[in-house]
C-alpha cells in the first residue's frame, strides 16, 4: 500500500514539474519535432507490420468461426474493421508501443540521470523534467493517433489481402463488410483512447527513468518496470474509457 501511494505521490509531483510552462517556446517546438521523429516516425514500421498480420489473422479467424449459411460473409469484413478500430489499433498498438517507446524513454532518461546529465540541466537553472519529458508527451499524444488510423487501414488491408490470397472468402464481400454500418464515434473513441495511452506510456516511462539511480542495472530495472506499469495502466484505462465513452 505504501509503495502504491509512494508511486502516485512521486508521479503527481513529477507531473506538476513536467506540465509547467516551457522556458523557451521555440526550443520546446524543436524538441517536440525531434521527439515526433524519434518516438513517432520510427514506430511506423513496427505498427505497420503488426497491423497487417493482425488484420489478416482476425479476418481468417472470423472466416473460420462464422462458417454458417445464416451469417452473411460480409460480416467478416465488418467484424475485422470493428476489432481493428475498437481494440487493436488503439489498445494492442499501445501495448506494443509501451514496449518499444516506453523502454526507450525510461532507459534514455535513466542513463541521463546516472551520468549526471539531469543534474547538469538542473544546475543550469533548467526545469529538467519539463525540458526532457514534456516534449515526449506532446509528440506522442499528437502522433500516436495517426499511428492508430494507419494501423486500422493497414489491418483492414491485411484482411483483404488474406481473403484474396487464400480464397477463404470473396474479397468483394469483405470490402462490402468494411463499409457496413460505419460509426464515426468508434473512430473518436479509438483516437481518444490512443491519445490517453500515449500520455500514460510517456509519463510513466519518463517517471521511471527520471527517478532511476545507481548503475546500468538499475536503469535496466527501471526500463522493465516502466513497460510493465505502462501496460497495466493501458489495460486499466481501456476498461475505464470503454465504460465512459461507449456505454
Amino acid at each position, binding site marked *: 500500500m505504501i509503495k502504491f501511494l509512494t508511486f502516485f505521490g512521486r508521479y503527481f509531483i513529477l507531473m506538476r514539474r513536467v506540465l509547467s510552462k516551457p*522556458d*523557451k517556446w521555440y*526550443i520546446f517546438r524543436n524538441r517536440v519535432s525531434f521527439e515526433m521523429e524519434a518516438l513517432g516516425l520510427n514506430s511506423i514500421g513496427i505498427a505497420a507490420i503488426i497491423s497487417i498480420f493482425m488484420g489478416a489473422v482476425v479476418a481468417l479467424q472470423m472466416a473460420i468461426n462464422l462458417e454458417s449459411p445464416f451469417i452473411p460473409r460480409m460480416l467478416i469484413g465488418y467484424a475485422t474493421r470493428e476489432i481493428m478500430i475498437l481494440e487493436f489499433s488503439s489498445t494492442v498498438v499501445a501495448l506494443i508501443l509501451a514496449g518499444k517507446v516506453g523502454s526507450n524513454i525510461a532507459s534514455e532518461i535513466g*542513463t*541521463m540521470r546516472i*551520468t*549526471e*546529465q539531469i*543534474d*547538469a540541466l*538542473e*544546475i*543550469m*537553472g*533548467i*526545469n529538467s523534467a519539463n525540458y526532457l519529458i514534456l516534449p515526449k508527451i506532446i509528440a506522442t499524444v499528437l502522433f500516436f493517433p495517426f499511428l492508430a488510423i494507419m494501423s486500422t487501414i493497414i489491418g483492414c488491408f491485411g484482411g483483404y489481402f488474406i481473403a484474396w490470397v487464400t480464397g477463404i472468402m470473396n474479397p468483394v464481400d469483405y470490402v462490402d463488410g468494411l463499409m457496413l454500418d460505419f460509426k464515426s464515434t468508434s473512430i473518436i473513441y479509438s483516437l481518444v483512447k490512443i491519445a490517453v495511452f500515449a500520455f500514460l506510456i510517456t509519463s510513466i516511462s519518463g517517471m521511471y527513468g527520471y527517478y532511476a539511480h545507481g548503475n546500468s542495472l538499475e536503469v535496466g530495472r527501471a526500463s522493465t518496470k516502466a513497460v510493465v506499469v505502462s501496460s497495466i495502466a493501458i489495460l486499466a484505462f481501456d476498461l475505464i474509457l470503454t465504460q465512459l465513452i461507449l456505454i
Partner: protein
Amino acid sequence: MITTEHLYKSFDNKEVLDDISVVFEQGKTNLIIGQSGSGKTVLLKCLVGLHPIDKGAILYDDVCFNTLSAKDRQQMRRHVGMIFQGGALLDSSTVRENVKLPLDMFTDRSEKEKIERVNFCLKRVNLENVNDLYPSELSGGMVKRVAIARAIVLNPKYLFCDEPNSGLDPMTSVVIDNLIKEITEEYNMTTIINTHDMNSVMEIGEKVIFIHKGRKWWEGTKYDILDSDNPELNAFVFASAMAKRSKECGNKNL
C-alpha cells in the same frame, strides 16, 4: 563568496556532513579534499542544492540559498556553472549545442551572437574544430574542456567542479587545473573544486579544506599543508609512495 554555517546532512539517519562552517573566497580556487566517502561530493551537491540540507545555512554572497523558493533557486542557478566528474554533456547534442544550451534557454541574443559566444568559450578552453562532434567522439580531456566552456558561457559568479581531473593523465590534469585557475581569476568567480588529487592541491590550492568523516578537519593553503601536524591530513597527503619518498628526502617542493 559562498559561506556555509553549521551545515548538517544525513542519509537514513547516517550523518554524512557534521557541522561544516566554511567561507569559500571570491576570485580564488577553493579546494575541498578528503578520502573517498568522506562527504566531499555530498557537500558540493548540498552547496548547489542538489541535496537538501538538514540544518544550517548556505549563503551565496548575502543570499541564503537553502531557504530560496524553487523558482528563485532556479534564477540563482543561472549564475552558477558546474563541471561534473564525467563531464555530464548531453549525449544527443553536439559540442556546439551543449555549450549553446544555456544561451538558448536564458538569453535573447541572436543566433549569430550565440555562435560567436560559443566559439569564444571553446577557443578559451583551447578547443577548436570540434563544434559538430558528439561527446562520444571526444577524449576525456576534451569532454572536461567542453564542460568548462559550457559552465562559463553565461559568465557565472560561482563555479563548482566535482573531481575535474578524474580519469585524466597527469599532464592533461595540470592543463585542466591551470585552465580553471585562469578562468577563476579572469572572471573573479568563487570557484569550489572537489578533489582528492594532491597534484591539483599543490598546483592551484589557494584555499584548501580537508573533510574527514563528514567534518571539517583542517583549513589552510597549499603552503600550510606540508607543515601541518594534523595526523589525518598527513596520512591523506603523504599516502602515495612518491609523496612519502619526497617527505623522507625533506623535499617540500612536491
